[in-house]
């Protein structure tokens, strides 16, 4: 695992969450252009996030029809209360 430079760690995490803006965004891009270690750390984190999203996308559990029927009955009961 490649760790980013000490001062850029938080910026890299916020960048992959599209939450880094303004000065810090510009600074990080500038830093990345000259720092292979941070580039590697960023690539690894982007890959991890993509892998996590892929795992989530492959999981599509659904409530069974009998559970929906039970829910509708409960909602009706709440409406009547």
């Amino acid at each position, binding site marked *: *695992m*490649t*760790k980013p430079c000490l001062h850029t*760690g*938080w910026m890299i*995490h*916020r960048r992959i*969450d599209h*939450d880094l803006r303004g000065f810090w965004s510009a600074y990080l*891009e500038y830093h*990345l*252009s000259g720092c*292979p270690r941070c*580039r*590697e750390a*960023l*690539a*690894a*984190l*982007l*890959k*991890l*996030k993509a*892998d*996590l*999203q*892929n*795992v*989530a996308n*492959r*999981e*599509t*559990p*659904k*409530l*069974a029809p009998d*559970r929906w029927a*039970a*829910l509708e009955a*409960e*909602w009706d009961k*709440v409406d009547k209360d």
Partner: protein
Amino acid sequence: MLRFATRMAAGNADLASDWVQDALIQAYRSYLKLDPEPLEYFRAWMYQIIRHVAYRASGKDQRTQNVEDIDAVADSSAMAPSPFDELVGNEIDVRIRRALQALPETQRMCVVLVDMEQLDYEETSRVMGIPTGTVRSRLSRGRMKLQELLGPNFSPHQEYHS
């Protein structure tokens, strides 16, 4: 919601369905007497209800799990692949799920909510009842720990290009 609940129930689909069912009933009851806030943050509000239902049902002892080593996780029967894992049969998925289970609960929740359920920091902060700064720090620690657990072979051999 069911996916999130299933993860909280460590792969137990029946238990997760119970929690989602309870949460949907509770959400509807609350909705009828609610202030406007839950509509503005509806998604976060629903996840928050699921989380409360799950915690209330499972009790504190089952909430926290600290496992330091992925091999220890793999050897633990509690961390054995769920029927869902076997169905998917994807080795990478199984490794990721096991590594996730090995994270401290507070970090795992942040990683699951942001990276898997795609909530933003503000929504995650509402679900967890913690400040957004704490979400960020738990998230970054959780991701670093996940990378450590998954090992070097899991890292990409690619360069970042701006």
